[in-house]
Every structure is written in C-alpha cells, then in structure tokens.
C-alpha cells in the first residue's frame, strides 16, 4: 500500500469526516488542528528525505549522484517545506486547537478558518510545481536577481495570506473571550498564541511587500528590474522574527503543557507573559543582523539592530529559568532530593518531558553559537559558513522541531480520541532526533570555522581544505541518516494512532497551573494594544530611514537572471 497517498488522503479528509469527536468544545478545532498538522508533518517527512540526500550528495562520495541542478532544487524544496510549510501549518493547527481548548470557546469563524487552510494548501501545491521541476532553485530566501517561475512567488504569497486568516481568528477569539469574561485573565496558552499571531502578521509584512511590489511584477515582466538592496532589506524585516514565529509554539508548550506532564506546576504565569511580550516587541525590529555583511546599510543601523538582538536573548533566558524551575518543582514533588536529584526523578519516559529536556540542552548549545552570530564583529569569522547552518539546525531543527513532536504526541490522542500508538517508540524517536541532530550540527560548526561555505553542492576547492573537511563531512551523513529514520518513526506513530483501538480516557487538554494562583493580572499583561503601538514606533525607528534611503538616493535596479 502506498503510505504517502494514504496520509495525504487522511490529511485532506480528516476535517470533513470528523469522527471520534467528544462533546467538549475543544473538539471544535480538532478537525482543522489535525488537518493542518498533518500537512505540516507530511511536508516534514519529505523534507527530511531531501535532507538525507543532500548530506550524501554534498560530500562527493558517490560521483553518480553529483548534480547541482538536483542539489539546489532539493535545498530550495527542503528549506521551503521545513521553514514555511511545516512551521506555518503546525502553528495554525496548534493555535486553533489551543484557542478552543484554553478559552473553552468555539472557533470564531469556522468556514473562514477552513478557507484560510485551503488557501495555504493551494499555495503550497502551486509553489511545489516549479520547486520540484527545478524552476525555483532560488533557495527559500528568494535571492533576487535570481528569478524563479512566478508560480513560486504566487504560491508563497497564498500560503502567507492563508496564515493571515489564522492571525485574524486568533485575535478575534481573544477579543470576544475578553468581552464575554470582563476582568478575567486570558489563559497563558492563548495569550502566547495571540502574541504569535500578532508577531507573525507584523513580521510577514516585510516579505509580503518584497513579493507583491517587487518579485511578482518583476517575474511577470511588468517591471524590468528590482533593487536588490531594497529587496534584501525588506526580507530582513521578516527573516529574524519568523524564527520566533516558529519558536513560539515550542515556548507555549514549555510553559503550558510541560509542567502538568512532568507532574508539577508552572513556576510563574506572569513571567511567561513577560517573555511573550518581550519576544513580540524585540524580535521584529532587529533583522539587520542578517545584513551585517551587506553593503547598502550603514554601520550605525546595524549596530542599533544588534542592541535589540541581544535584548531578544532576555526572554529566552527568562524562559530557561522559569521552565527549569518548574521542572525542579515537579522533580521534587516526585521525591527527587538535593541540588540535582530532582533531574533523575523527572518522568524521562514521558515524550513531552523528554523532548523539553533535550530541547533545553540543544537551545543551550545553539544559544552559544547564536551569541557569536549576533556579534556585529565576531560574525565576520562565520558569516555564510557552514557554522550558520549548524546553528539554525540546532535551534530550529533541534529545539523547535523536537517540541513540535512533543506537541503532536500530547495532542494527537486528544484530537483523535485514540491513545498514542506507541509511547516507547515516541521516546526512542526523540532520542534519535537529539543524537542525530548533534552528530549533524556539531561537525557543521567545526566545518564553518574551517572555512567551508554554506549552500554548496560539492567541494571543488583547494586540496588542503577538502582534506581538513573530510572527517566532519563524513559524520554528517550518519547524522542525516539517523534524523531521517527518526522522522519516519514520528509519522508512522502518528498515523497508527488514528487506528488505535484503545480510546483516550479524557479528551481534556491539561494546562499548567501556576505555583501562585493569579490574583489580579495587570492590564498590560492581559492585552496587546500598547505593545503593538510600541512595536510600530520601534519599527519606524529601526526600519524607517533604512527603507526610505532607497527612494532618496539614485539606485540601479537589476534585471532578472536565470539560475
């Protein structure tokens, strides 16, 4: 039987069949939750296969495999599937389900939500055609003046517009809930989800402007040239905060699902809100750390963005404290003694707890590297080397995606009404992902320091380089293979859960309770109006002139180039 076809059919049909639903209100979003997350995980499995092919191709081990056409087509598809499709669909599915279950309220507008979902699916299918036929090998960062087929840009736009529907739904759900519950505190899970919806809307305006005003008219021949400097500046607006859009679900799960799974309480509800607000305020106006090495922006602007880049580390440091403190509470409640005894007392066999622990470890490693990338001066040594690829695979592929797995393992039983097919397999899968990710990414850091550029399909360089790179390059094949096996285990486990005979006892999602009951939440930590205003002011200050300058000086556009 062709499993891929079955899975695709499953994803398409799941929202419409709607069996196994309980009467709880949360089930209202189970259909769209499952459908969205399935689209995400199918994209993920395909991308993991491509990733495995890429590590083999890149080392020139099998000369027959060597093909830059195939490799760069594959890298572009891998990036789009992992960074745009997996993330956007997981965020939407998890968001819809979180909103209905945490607010105990129906979807604001169910037909509209499905409309957004299908719009995004059509966008992905439209973009897939040029991607898979090698007509959009411009990498997921677009890279004008390389020009892809217009269908690629239009498809990407539909995906983003579909996700804007989700943003609207989240904001409306929080607003209507607050109207119906005056004076009450918005549940932390929903507060974080809404913060992410607002963050994503503001963030995506950068790339949306680039695509709508520059790339689509240019690829259709309506305009002849694009200003690459302006295009890169607009993309940088999106490029940093998008990673927080991806990371948000991971943090929301750490704050609101992990403490109960570990058998404890959330150390502080309020600090979760502070972290979410700081992420919202500081993650968008700092995109120039992606342009440190570019001409066309003056050093002072880059320095301003660097200050914000360091500030955005603060919510992550706060999160680290709160989550570890929450785990310590759980470990001590479970009988753990002493300074470190509570770590051993944690339920390591629980997928959510295990994933969180591994995620925190990878976040620590990745965070060190991130500080170097963020440093205006030190970044010079690693810019565009394989170090960077190692860094974001640790933070995104590691920390973020492993939490996506944990979210799936926790919510699949609630959404399908069936127990998880195999918890043992889930635990093994998470360990394999962690080990594979370390074997893949630690050597990549070393390769970067040894001068290897990222985004190459082979190594036709000076022999001294190639010899020095060989051991680390060999290791990455092992890492890629382990990750691919782990990806298949995830998809298999989730797929089999649908047919599990054992029903899940309770379909209620258990959200964390804070250590100290909330007395009265300050208005600023229960709303977003002021913070959105602050982001707008900060954005005008940090992006206003850098964008305006392209209209104030004489610039020269660039004609399209094929790959």
């Amino acid at each position: 039987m062709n499993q891929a076809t079955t899975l695709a059919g499953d994803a398409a049909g799941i929202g419409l069949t709607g069996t196994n639903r309980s009467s709880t209100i949360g089930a209202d979003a189970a259909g769209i939750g499952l459908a969205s997350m399935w689209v995400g995980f199918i994209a993920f499995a395909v991308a993991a296969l491509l990733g495995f092919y890429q590590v083999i191709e890149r080392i020139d081990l099998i000369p027959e495999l060597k093909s830059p056409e195939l490799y760069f087509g594959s890298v572009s598809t891998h990036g789009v599937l992992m960074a745009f499709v997996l993330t956007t669909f997981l965020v939407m599915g998890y968001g819809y389900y979180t909103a209905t279950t945490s607010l105990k309220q129906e979807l604001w507008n169910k037909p509209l939500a499905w409309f957004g979902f299908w719009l995004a699916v059509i966008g992905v299918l439209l973009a897939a055609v040029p991607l898979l036929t090698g007509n959009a090998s411009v990498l997921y960062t677009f890279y004008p003046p390389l020009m892809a087929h217009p269908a690629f840009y239009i498809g990407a736009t539909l995906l983003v517009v579909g996700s804007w529907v989700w943003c609207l739904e989240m904001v409306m759900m929080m607003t209507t809930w607050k109207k119906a519950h005056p004076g009450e505190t918005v549940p932390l899970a929903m507060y974080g989800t809404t913060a992410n919806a607002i963050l994503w809307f503001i963030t995506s305006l950068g790339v949306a402007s680039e695509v709508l005003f520059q790339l689509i008219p240019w690829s259709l021949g309506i305009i002849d040239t694009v200003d690459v400097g302006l295009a890169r500046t607009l993309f940088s607006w999106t490029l940093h905060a998008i990673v927080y859009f991806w990371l948000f679900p991971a943090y929301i799960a750490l704050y609101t699902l992990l403490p109960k799974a570990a058998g404890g309480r959330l150390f502080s509800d309020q600090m979760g809100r502070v972290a979410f607000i700081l992420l919202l305020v500081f993650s968008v106006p700092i995109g120039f750390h992606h342009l440190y090495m570019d001409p066309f922006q003056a050093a002072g602007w880059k320095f301003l963005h660097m200050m914000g880049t360091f500030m955005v580390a603060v919510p992550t440091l706060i999160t680290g404290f709160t989550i570890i403190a929450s785990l310590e509470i759980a470990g001590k409640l479970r009988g753990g003694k002493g300074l470190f005894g509570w770590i051993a007392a944690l339920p390591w066999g629980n997928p959510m707890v295990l994933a969180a622990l591994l995620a925190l470890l990878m976040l620590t490693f990745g965070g060190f590297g991130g500080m170097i990338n963020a440093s205006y001066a030190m970044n010079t040594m690693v810019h565009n080397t394989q170090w960077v690829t190692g860094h974001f695979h640790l933070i995104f592929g590691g920390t973020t995606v492993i939490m996506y797995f944990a979210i799936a393992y926790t919510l699949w039983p609630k959404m399908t009404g069936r127990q998880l097919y195999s918890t043992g397999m889930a635990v093994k899968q998470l360990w394999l992902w962690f080990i594979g990710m370390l074997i893949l990414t630690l050597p990549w850091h070393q390769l970067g320091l040894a001068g290897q550029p990222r985004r190459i399909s082979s190594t036709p360089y000076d022999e001294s380089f190639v010899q020095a790179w060989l051991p680390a390059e060999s290791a990455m094949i092992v890492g890629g293979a382990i990750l691919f096996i782990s990806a298949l285990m995830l998809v298999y486990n989730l797929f089999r859960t649908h047919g599990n005979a054992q029903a899940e006892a309770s379909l209620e999602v258990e959200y964390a309770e804070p250590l100290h009951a909330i007395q009265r939440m300050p208005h600023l930590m229960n709303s977003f109006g002021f913070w959105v205003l602050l982001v707008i002011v900060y954005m005008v200050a940090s992006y206003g002139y850098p964008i305006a300058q392209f209209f104030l000086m004489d610039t020269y556009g660039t004609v399209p180039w094929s790959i």
Partner: protein
Amino acid sequence: MFADPLKSICEDPLERGWIWISLILAFFMAGMLGFYAVSNNINPPSNVETIDSSRLHLTEEFAEDNLGVTTNADGSLTVTLVAARYGFYPPVIEVPVDTPVIFRMASADVLHGVHVPFTNMTTMVVPGYISEVRTSFPRSGEYSLLCNEYCGLGHDSMWSRLVVTEKSSAGETS
C-alpha cells in the same frame, strides 16, 4: 534602600535576581561590542554606494584594465575586484603582509559573497552596490577567495587565489 523596579512584575526574589543577571549579560555583551566598534573601529563592511551593475565595464573604476592592485599615496593598497558568475576578476591577487588593504568590489550579475577563510576579509557583493572592506593580513601565505553566497548552479566552483607575500617582496611590487 533602593527599590527593585522589577518588583511590580515579578514576586520571586530568586527570579528577579536571574532577570537582572540576564539584562546585565545582554547589555554587557552589546556594550563590549560597542566599545570595540568605537575605540578600535571594528565594524562590519557597511558601504552605502551605488553603481549600475550592468555597465561596470563602462565605469572608470571597474573597467577591465583598471582591476587589480593599486598603491595609494599613503602606502595602503586598493584592490579592485569584479565578482561575476563564476569567478573573481582578476583571478589572482597579490598583496604584501601587514599592509592596509582596501577591497572595492562590484558584481556584474547576481548576488555574490566573498570570504577568505582564516581572515576577516568577508563581505556580500550585491548587484547595484559597491562593497568595501578595509583590512590587512598579518600572516603571509596562499589563501583562497571563496564565493560564499549561492549565485547559481556553478556557485561551488567560484573561487580564486589571494597571495599574501612577505614584506621584502612588497617593496618590489610597489
């Protein structure tokens, strides 16, 4: 006694302490980078200067005959380079050790990047703009100049040579 301004948002003294540590850490790191940026002039290449990439050959600076190494009045060197698929022109550059070098680069087609591994010579080369890097090379030897930004299917093979010669031979070339 000085009142902790964080007290209004955070009740736990341990957590307040941690937030202070986080804030101090962030400001300290950014402050150090700011200090070196100002005192030692360590900044990333940030030249805001436009050029028509489709007419490089018609400009004086990037015309084919004018590419390569020239010596300035103050003893520093200017290296004028064109990045075009799939090479850097001229393909071999020779500069003396411990001498200030100003690289001026322009792209004739798409986005490129340049990195000389084990040195801090790196910049993006963006069509429509001139990139400028000011550096010097403290160790002599043969270096590779690698394109480090995806520029098309032949990107991997886009690299050339940079030779850093001993000071003695520098006298002969200049």
